[in-house]
């Protein structure tokens, strides 16, 4: 009864003091959040309905930026296609690659920790270095791969110089740098109860059966996690294409974030860029919801 009375009256003075102290301690984060996340987030929504170039006062244009993006800007649809292509192929392939790599590295092989280090290494290489290394490897004239082909008297492969090959090449690089996802998978694989495999062995299951019916289902929560993180990254893919191809050749690697950045900081179109940012935000949210909805059908949670 006393507790009920207290609940009705709200906090006690001691609880208020604690709350104040707690808020005081987290105030640096709160301040940062409101200044650097909340305010810019809603400013961008405001500016998406304005003609705004960062230098002159914003002018209200209603939905004009959105209409322009969808109906007048021919580059937008190519950019959307490029991004969906990368997200649709690159991210699942990246997750599959990381999962398979983790599975291999989870087996009892000689020098396992060395291999784990080698496969994780690309994840800690800065993007600028990654771009330069792959530039040297894939270059059509002097790249290591093409130099080998040239040496063998074979025609070169224009990996990042051909519009048709540029996106797959970037996906290849993306797959190469899956160290983080691989480590997460590795931790999950080590957590799969041995007893399940032993029971399956007793039941006469072979390696494929165990992988298909035990390993994959037990790892589905982490597959979902890596997919969600991967898709968000995929939609915002910027650094590597910016450094490696600059959006070319012929706009083949002009991804959404590059296009957004170009509009904001090069074409002086911050209003349009804000609208692009909100479209991207909505797409990512919808995509994530869709993924979580679908997860009910394929993700297995052991605790349920």
């Amino acid at each position, binding site marked *: 009864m006393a507790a009920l009375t207290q609940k009705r009256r709200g906090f006690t003075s001691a609880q208020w*003091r604690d709350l104040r*102290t707690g808020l*005081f*301690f987290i105030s*640096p984060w709160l301040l940062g959040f409101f200044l650097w996340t909340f305010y810019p987030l809603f400013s961008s929504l405001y500016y998406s309905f304005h*003609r705004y*170039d*960062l*230098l*002159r006062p914003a*002018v209200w244009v209603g939905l*004009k930026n959105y209409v*322009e993006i969808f109906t*007048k800007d*021919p*580059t937008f649809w190519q950019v959307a296609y490029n991004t969906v292509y990368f997200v649709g192929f690159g991210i699942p392939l990246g997750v599959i690659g990381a999962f398979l790599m983790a599975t291999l590295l989870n087996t009892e092989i000689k020098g396992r920790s060395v291999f784990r280090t080698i496969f994780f290494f690309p994840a800690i290489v800065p993007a600028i270095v990654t771009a330069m290394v792959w*530039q*040297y490897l894939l*270059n*059509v*004239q*002097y790249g290591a791969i*093409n130099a080998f*082909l*040239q040496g063998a*008297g*074979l*025609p*070169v492969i*224009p990996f*990042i*110089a*051909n*519009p048709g090959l540029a996106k797959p090449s970037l996906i290849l690089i993306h797959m190469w740098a899956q160290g983080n996802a691989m480590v997460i998978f590795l931790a999950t694989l080590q957590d799969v109860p041995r007893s399940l495999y032993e029971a399956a062995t007793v039941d006469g299951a072979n390696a494929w059966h165990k992988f298909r019916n035990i390993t994959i289902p037990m790892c589905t929560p982490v597959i979902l996690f890596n997919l969600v993180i991967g898709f968000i990254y995929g939609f915002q893919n910027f650094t590597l294409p910016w450094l490696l191809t600059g959006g*070319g*050749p*012929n*706009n083949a690697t002009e991804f959404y974030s590059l296009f957004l950045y*170009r509009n904001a*900081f*090069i*074409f*002086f*179109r911050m209003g*349009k860029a804000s609208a692009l940012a909100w479209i991207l935000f909505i797409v990512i949210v919808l995509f994530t919801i869709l993924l979580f909805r679908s997860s009910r059908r394929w993700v297995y949670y052991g605790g349920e």
Partner: protein
Amino acid sequence: MANLPNNGMSRRDFLRTTSMMLAGGLIAACTPSSAPAAGGGSSAAPAAEGGTIQYWFGWGGNYAGVAWDTLKETETLKGILGDVTLETKGSSGGEPLLTAVAAGTPPEGASNTQYLDYMARGVLVPVGDWVDSSDTVKQEAYLEGTWKDAFDREGVMYGVPANEGYLRYGLVYNAEMVGEAGLDPDTPPETWEECLAWHEAITKFDDAGNLIQVGMDPFDAMGGQLAIQDGFYPAVSWNFSWFDSDAGTFNVDNEMMVQAFNTMGEFYKIVGPDNMAGMRQVEGNGMWGGSYNNRVQAMMIDGYWRPGGTYISQPEVGENTRITWAPVPTDRKGVKVQGYGGHYVIFFKDAPNTEKMFQVSEFLNSNEACDIIFSNSGFLPGLLGYLSTVDENIYPGLKFYFDSQDTADEWSSPARCPMTDFSRTQWNELRESVYRDEMTAEAAATEFQSRLESEWEALGI
């Protein structure tokens, strides 16, 4: 459970005291630090007393490095600056400058940037009054086009010509590479058609069909530009005005533009667009004129800086450099085209010490400064007085530009279009669509016109 000994401080007291100490520390950390004591040996001391002015520019290399190191050591500049510190920032892209201007903390001056885009948005200081009282920056001191370029499309002067501002067009070629291809370097091409024949003769592939050497990339250097300071070569070569600055209208959906898309694209089709793109992706070849300096490309359209630029970095290539009139269409054979253009210093309203920066820009127009810049980077200003002191034969090929000053038939100046990077990006995109056969030249010209008009309307300038 044993009671904890009472040390006179409760948990709450401890938290309160700690938080107060933290808050105090935070406030102390946010307080601006005081100026270092005089004689403390800190290089920041003069800056704290006299302040700092900043000058950002897009050039890197020798201009940003050795040229400015030398300029800063001159007694003249030291005298102008007094106790003010001049900070220069080279290779400064458009994005950092835009964000600095938007944030209200722009540098005092900038060069080699989107000049007209800033002029059109009211963030620059009009320099008319300063110029009126200047002994150095006078109209009669400059080439006609150099002076004209410092104004916006409404006729307000916002820039002080400086650093680089001489003539823009010439067909630069490596006589040795031309000779090796069995061509006569003494009878260079005059038209695009003749250039294409040379291009085919010089371009080499290995047995597997891989590109080894290219005759001419018509979009390298000045051939591919669409910029405030450099103009738009297709418009110069085919002789049409692509932007009417008075009316704010575009004219790129025309037969000349169609011809330009087709003719210039043909050079890529011969080599193969992927091969050309691959050649550009090689380290060093992607830069302006880099493949010419690396002796991978034999011809290109470029300005007066090429002889010096190449000779300083690759003397063996520079020695073989020859220059003739930039190509024109066959029906205009014999027409000698030349163009003005160049750079200036612009001054931002929100910067505190623009007047001092103006004095620095006056210094950049002195013979002393021009000499340092020319000898270290090959840049020449559009200053008549200084140009008369230059040895035209110092770099092979340079004389062509000096001679062209009196012999050119048609002169052009860059259009005053404050939509720089968007226009250039569309030109790059559409020409690639044409030479990759994804779009006809006619459709590209129509699309170009449509995109420029649509963007112009959206900008609300």
